[in-house]
């Protein structure tokens, strides 16, 4: 019998139930309240406080990937002229808009608003423009300049804050609702609370054995992405934190017999959420930290909410320089006592993937551990070379064994 190498969280069932309810509810709720499709780095707290239901095409893209349902939809987009080289979240989701009859849940309910922020990539701007044209729905683009230097400069904060003001006015006009300051601040507080909990949970992985592994982190991140700013999100993460603490007290690791602790860089390989990561866990290798779920870890200062949002949403991980990210990755590898790093060169995501050669060099030189770049895709199984990946993973594990 194959040894079980994945230990399921007890709260996982609650998460499945909650996410199913979220997606079931969206069909009904979309008839009762305005719906916005938003990029994962959009200042969603404004919309939540206005009673708008935010839906996340990127999360939908991840679901398509995890269900191995992306390729037929990507092909729908390709049939309309989109190149196979483009982001597979975008082409998968666009495919679900073009051919809802082929899409899980028949796609997301039609939006009333579209909101994209380029703090995660420039691709969302083009993707949402295409959606806006196709659906005839108004689009707001929030421009958050990339941070080449060590910190966000004042004129950038002023610029992004001016746009947040404009965004609030735009969203009010589109929905015919007024943003109530009290509710806005409450939503920000809930968002911060969830972000803090999520950060604390992830930090618990410094323990040996680590209570969580990459597939846990990738599935458990769903609420911080799609339910940010709600009570439900905070309550869920309290439960998760309690279970994680329980695992630590009892010395239960996510991977039985943890032997190697690894750092993961980039978006998950969703279609391989179990099969791919199992290659590691069955050898006792646990991904104890990563740069993807880390992206939702900055709280918003609430004394001046607009400026707070401007700062928080500009300084997201992926909007920071290669140099800054290399430093963070080294620091992460050291703090979590990683024995190695796996960097997923994700054909779909240039912001995450460009710079990885330098990340690899930094991790090797400064954290003193081996690091490997592995080419794949977050959703598109057509570019996942199973045999080649297996060989490379085995060679990497062999190297860990010897070092």
């Amino acid at each position: 019998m194959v040894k079980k190498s994945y230990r399921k969280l007890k709260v996982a069932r609650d998460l499945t139930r909650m996410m199913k309810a979220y997606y079931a509810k969206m069909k009904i709720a979309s008839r009762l309240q305005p719906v916005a499709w938003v990029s994962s780095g959009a200042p969603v707290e404004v919309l939540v406080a206005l009673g708008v239901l935010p839906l996340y095409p990127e999360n939908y893209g991840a679901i398509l990937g995890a269900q191995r349902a992306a390729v037929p939809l990507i092909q729908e987009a390709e049939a309309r002229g989109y190149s196979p080289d483009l982001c597979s979240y975008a082409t998968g989701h666009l495919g679900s808009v073009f051919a809802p009859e082929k899409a899980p849940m028949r796609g997301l309910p039609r939006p009333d608003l579209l909101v994209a922020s380029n703090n995660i990539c420039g691709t969302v701007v083009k993707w949402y423009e295409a959606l806006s044209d196709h659906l005839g729905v108004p689009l707001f683009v929030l421009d958050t300049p990339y941070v080449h230097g060590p910190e966000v400069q004042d004129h950038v904060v002023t610029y992004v804050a001016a746009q947040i003001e404009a965004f609030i006015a735009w969203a009010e006009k589109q929905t015919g609702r007024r943003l109530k300051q009290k509710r806005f601040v409450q939503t920000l507080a809930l968002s911060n609370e969830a972000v803090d909990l999520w950060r604390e949970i992830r930090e618990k992985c410094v323990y040996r054995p680590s209570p969580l592994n990459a597939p846990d982190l990738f599935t458990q991140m769903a609420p911080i992405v799609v339910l940010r700013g709600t009570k439900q999100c905070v309550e869920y993460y309290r439960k998760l934190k309690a279970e994680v603490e329980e695992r630590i007290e009892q010395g239960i690791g996510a991977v039985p017999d943890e032997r190697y602790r690894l750092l993961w860089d980039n978006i998950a390989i969703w279609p391989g959420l179990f099969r791919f990561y199992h290659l590691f866990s069955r050898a006792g290798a646990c991904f104890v930290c990563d740069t993807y779920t880390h992206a939702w870890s900055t709280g918003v200062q609430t004394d001046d909410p607009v400026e707070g949002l401007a700062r928080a949403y500009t300084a997201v991980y992926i909007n920071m320089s290669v140099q800054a990210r290399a430093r963070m990755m080294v620091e992460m590898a050291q703090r979590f006592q990683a024995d190695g790093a796996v960097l997923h060169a994700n054909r779909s995501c240039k912001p995450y993937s460009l710079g990885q050669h330098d990340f690899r060099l930094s991790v090797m030189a400064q954290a003193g551990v081996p690091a490997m770049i592995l080419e794949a895709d977050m959703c598109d199984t057509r570019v996942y070379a199973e045999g080649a990946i297996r060989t490379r993973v085995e060679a990497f594990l062999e190297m860990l064994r010897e070092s």
Partner: protein
Amino acid sequence: MTERNAKLVEAGEVLEEISGWPLARWPERFPGARAFGYLNTHVPEEVLHAAGLTPVHVFGQRRTLEQAETRLPAFACWLVRSALDAAMAGELDFMAGMAFAHTCDTVQALVDIWQLAVPSMPVLTLDTPVALDAAGARRFFVAALGLFCDQVAALAGRPVKDDDLRASIVLHNDIRRLVARLYALSDRLPSWTLLAALRAGHLAPRETYRRLLADLVAALEAEPSSVAPGAPRLIVVGAHLDDTSLYRAVAEAGGHVVDDLLDLGRLYYSELVAEEGDPLASLADRYLAQVPIAAKTHSSRRRDEALVALVQARQADGVVLSPQKFCEPHGFDYVTLKSALDRAGVPHLLVELEQAQVTGQVRTRLGAFVEMLC
């Protein structure tokens, strides 16, 4: 050969020579000039020029990659991979530095990687608003231009004075007016000469370029159309073309390029800068008034509408859409432009460019496309 005709041939040949001159040997072609590299359309060359520098565009290079593969994945576009490779090989060491304006995800990462890979070369960055009509965009961009001026002045070892900046604005406006005239006369010169003339404006010292361009335009004014009767009039869309091979292939197929929506062409030379008032504010206003490049956006000033309007204004018969492989902005844009052209009943052909040259397969497809239009 008449005297005018001789001048036309001469100016065209010089511009073609500049366009095709190997970048690594730039100092031999323009001795005495202090080159400063830039990679994309929105670097304000007036600022570099006002500091006594000669802005030189680093286009994609025709080369076998040697070192860039150790810094960039294969799914980064050829422009950034080949440019970084040239820099890592020391071929751009003659430049006093490189300037990058924010464009796309790939270039924003390249800027950081460049500094790690070629630490000896000073690198300047300029933030540019992505949404041209965003609230606060003008104020932000004026501030960013101010910071850029400070960086340029520090490197050049002299301040960027308002008077020098104004003189530079006048020079560049002259060039833009001449280029507008060149486009109007584009049916009087070979397609590849048009592209070579546009490319040369990124590569030659600008005073030299203004003189050459003025000669070319003056000579063209008296020329008859050189388009063969019945040859389809085409418009080319894309970002940057690394050489004139695509235009040559169009001509060989029997077509004639009359205009473009290229970052290096129409978009680079469009809109004048106000010659009065605060020069940095004027530079910002010009940027914000432009048709956005594919990586930028504007809520109502659309690229597809600009393209269809250009097709109509130039009475073009078809459009060649030539995005670079792995370019996300142009990859998405292609579908939007294609749809608009379909609605307007304008034939179009997709020619995705992988490296700095046009392949035999592309020639065959261009041939079939032009034949269909005839």
